[in-house]
């Protein structure tokens, strides 16, 4: 069973080929990883999947449906959610409001309902569900604080909570552990694993922390200069000479 398939996806910006002929099949229900040196095209792959870029060539399929020409909001509705490398929260709004915005995509309330007080019932449910989600991510105490004033780790967690509010089946995490110390990233990873089990998600993550990637991912793709140079399970990647040469280098030996 596979949920997301990229077929020969290529993304060119003028003369630069950011992603070159990249194919991947993400199996359903797994945590998988996408790694590679800086500028390898990992985030471009995410942007193609979430509809911000239309692949120059090739196609993307999600649950047997071609999604490469859909706008971002329709892709979200199809069940793909993501977080960003540089956190993108609605910084003037409270943590609760951030999560409530995430629930908007599945709400049946129409925009004209509030003046007629027809929105109250569903809005109450959304508020309750948003609070539950915040509780799950240890953010209940800061629910009313502006998202921009939260500490860094809390902002990372809030971004994941907001993504989960859209009720996805597939979650893309762009460097979730960036800027965290080893203990924090271990905690985050156990949180991600438990969330995956609770919500029955398929997760694809970009990460530079090799300990994290090798620890949670069951399948890894390695990009370099836009091309896929290796794929396979962590052991396979660990021992692949091309990968060691291109990316892991000494760091690999340290964690091995």
């Amino acid at each position, binding site marked *: 069973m596979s949920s997301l398939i990229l077929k020969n996806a290529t993304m060119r910006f003028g003369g630069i080929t950011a992603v070159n002929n990249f194919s991947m099949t993400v199996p359903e229900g797994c945590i998988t990883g996408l790694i590679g040196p800086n500028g390898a095209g990992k985030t471009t792959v995410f942007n193609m999947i979430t509809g911000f870029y239309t692949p120059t060539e090739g196609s993307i399929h999600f649950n047997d449906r071609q999604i490469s020409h859909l706008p971002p909001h329709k892709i*979200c509705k199809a069940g793909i959610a993501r977080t*960003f490398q540089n956190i993108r929260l609605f910084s003037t*709004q409270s943590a609760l409001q951030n999560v409530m915005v995430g629930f908007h995509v599945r709400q049946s*309330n129409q925009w004209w309902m*509030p*003046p007629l007080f027809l929105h109250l019932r569903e809005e109450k449910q959304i508020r309750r569900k948003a609070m539950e989600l915040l509780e799950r991510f240890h953010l209940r105490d800061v629910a009313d604080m*502006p998202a921009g*004033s939260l500490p860094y780790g809390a902002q990372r967690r809030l971004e994941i909570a907001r993504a989960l509010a859209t009720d996805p089946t597939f979650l893309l995490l762009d460097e979730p552990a960036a800027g965290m110390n080893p203990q924090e990233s271990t905690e985050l990873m156990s949180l991600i694993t438990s969330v995956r089990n609770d919500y029955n998600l398929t997760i694809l993550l970009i990460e530079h922390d090799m300990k994290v990637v090798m620890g949670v991912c069951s399948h890894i793709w390695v990009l370099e200069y836009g091309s896929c140079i290796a794929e396979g399970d962590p052991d396979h990647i660990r021992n692949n000479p091309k990968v060691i040469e291109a990316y892991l280098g000494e760091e690999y030996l340290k964690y091995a």
Partner: protein
Amino acid sequence: MKTNTQRNWACTALALGILAWFLYYAQNNFSPYTVQILNLVAINAILAVSLNLIYGFTGMFSLGHAGFMAIGAYVCTLFILSPDQKVTMWMLEDMPEILVNMNLPFFPAVIMAGIVACLFGLLIAIPVLRLGGDYLGIATLGFAEIIRVVITNIPSITNGALGIKGIPAHATIWWNYGWLIFTLFIICSLLKSNVGNVFKAIRDDEIAARTMGINSFFYRVLSFCIGAFFAGVGGALMGSMISTIDPKMFNFMLTFNILMIVVAGGLGSITGSIIGSVVITFMLELLRVVEDPFSIGSFEIAGVPGMRMVIFSLLLLIIIIFRREGLLGTREFSWNSLFFMPRYLKMRKQIEPGSGKDFGGRAH
């Protein structure tokens, strides 16, 4: 929780009662000049709140408000003028028969004004809202100018540059404040619901909003059209209140006045827009004093027309330099905050970055 809601409704009802009593008192005891200023406060508040929805809450820098007001004012006027007035006043070109006989009472005429302005808003929004930031401002400014030029050049419908005089003065203080309360009700209920969260999400980070499944183009158009509707309503009320309109009235300065109210009151605060329109409308009138001739000792200084705008610009500069977020920032008045003022203040002290010990950037 429940008692709070009931208490808040009671307070709102009480406040409305006090407002009604005040307006009744003002109508009977104040000079017509002061009553006129009160009318202007209400109309400016309607316009400021509608612009704040577009600019302050959805983050679209729009300078097209005068255009929508012009559309609203002309549409409403054409509906409430009597056929006789139309026949005698249209001197440049005769008016088409169908328009001469077109007549509606005041309330539906104002609604029509809003709807037509809203339709024009939709028409301009679809091509223009693909732009962002300053470009959108320039495009909407151009739109407002186009409207003005078009109105000047279709004399068979608008009586061209001569304008329209003797518009029935239906817009009493009751209509104006009634419409203000209606505007506030609609816009506040939208902003308090999840739709409001969506508007603010688009303002804060459009890319993240689109990733969260928000059709940002739809919501931007929606916000723009609602704003245009109430701008049309405001224009209609203004036309009927001052009983004469001409194309020159709806120039850029009108938009600028409204923008000034919104920015001074606080972008993203409805309360700020209301306070801003009260303060600025009254100040615009009170400052007329500085334009009168005055004497220092034996020196006679002739009055300088336009002097109050100089003082006004200075005040605006001071606001921008010392309080860039406006009088209220994005804060809103609510009954809860009034009743829990002491606790609320304590809470705010903790939240404010820098002052709070626990949240000041500490990694978690």
